[in-house]
């Protein structure tokens, strides 16, 4: 078995052996991302956890990153693949800047690029094990889209990945409307993230919310949500059950 030394030829890091890469499995994974369009642009929320199987190994992973001037990428799934995608996008943005022609990649273009990358990897049975959320604002137009690890790609007013598909989507369908204010948007996202915190075993109570507007991208400092545990049954747990079993 030869030890492949990656050769960087300016495009991507390729393997010398053709056969060695097949379907993988993820090791360090991030859980859901939830994102919505609002009045001034796009809001995206994610927690900062990195799970290693069933153990929550890392609690300081940033799963949302700014891409160029106009976009924000959030990822769930394998973190090493997300880091690799960020490298591809770095190259893309660098080449875009080198043209020095006043144009810059907008969210639609980045989303399209990612869709092609994800789909082509899927066709080679060597997927990047991520579900990506791409949001951005360019020339006053907000954009929000999603790509999965098998290349399924679409845009919508609100998206969610992983557990968020099951838990956050119904809330968003009911309560999202056009022209949400920033405060209302954040409240809506926090509502979704709270449900995910309660019901997703791999979620942690340390989240960031990112905002993209025409002015640019800002990612908040990590903070935690208030949770409710004041159930009557916990107040006096031994009432009616003296002694042990």
């Amino acid at each position, binding site marked *: 078995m030869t030890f492949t030394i990656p050769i960087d030829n300016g495009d991507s890091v390729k393997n010398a052996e053709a056969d060695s890469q097949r379907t993988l499995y993820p090791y360090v994974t991030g859980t859901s991302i939830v994102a919505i369009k609002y009045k001034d642009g796009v809001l995206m929320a994610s927690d900062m956890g990195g799970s290693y199987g069933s153990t929550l190994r890392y609690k300081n992973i940033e799963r949302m990153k700014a891409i160029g001037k106009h976009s924000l990428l959030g990822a769930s799934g394998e973190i*090493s693949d997300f880091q690799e995608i960020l490298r591809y996008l770095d190259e893309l943005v660098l080449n875009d800047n080198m043209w020095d022609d006043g144009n810059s990649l907008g969210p639609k273009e980045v989303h399209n690029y990612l869709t092609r990358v994800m789909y082509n990897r899927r066709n080679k049975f060597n997927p990047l094990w991520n579900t990506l959320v791409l949001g951005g604002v360019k020339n006053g137009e907000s954009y929000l889209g999603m790509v999965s690890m098998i290349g399924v790609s679409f845009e919508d007013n609100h998206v969610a990945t992983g557990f968020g598909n099951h838990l956050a989507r119904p809330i968003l369908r009911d309560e999202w409307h056009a022209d949400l204010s920033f405060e209302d948007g954040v409240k809506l996202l926090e509502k979704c993230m709270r449900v995910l915190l309660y019901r997703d075993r791999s979620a942690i109570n340390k989240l960031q919310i990112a905002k993209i507007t025409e002015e640019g991208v800002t990612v908040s400092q990590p903070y935690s949500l208030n949770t409710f545990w004041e159930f009557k049954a916990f107040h006096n747990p031994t009432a009616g059950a003296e002694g042990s079993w």
Partner: protein
Amino acid sequence: MDLNLDAPHSMGTTIIGVTYNGGVVLGADSRTSTGMYVANRASDKITQLTDNVYVCRSGSAADSQVVSDYVRYFLHQHTIQLGQPATVKVSANLIRMLAYNNKNMLQTGLIVGGWDKYEGGKIYGIPLGGTVVEQPFAIGGSGSSYLYGFFDQAWKENMTKEEAEVKIIYA
């Protein structure tokens, strides 16, 4: 008792890397096991990459040794071309490159720790799969499961070297 001396040499390891107010301290146990047999009770799991960067190895002994050897070689060339000591970040990234691109074949978790003049003492954890995570302290290997709770409670920022060493030895 089933000795199975042909089982792959895995390390059954505990490795730790901690930053303190002046640099980093790395710690590791010294057992290499083949199944139930202890193949080497005096292994050195902390391996030098450059004068200022070391790596703690866990998982498959062979995989971690060969990755370290390649990265030491790359870093040596890099140092010559750069004209100054390599940074910890570059070392971590080289390891990541090998770990990520060969993720199907490698089974090794590494902790890179060192000091450079730009960022000071830094620790980077590189688990299976090739993710790079910069951390104020990192633990790894199968023995590390028992230490998550300990470090969550015992770690604090800006320890002295002595405090860090004591904690690691205790762990």
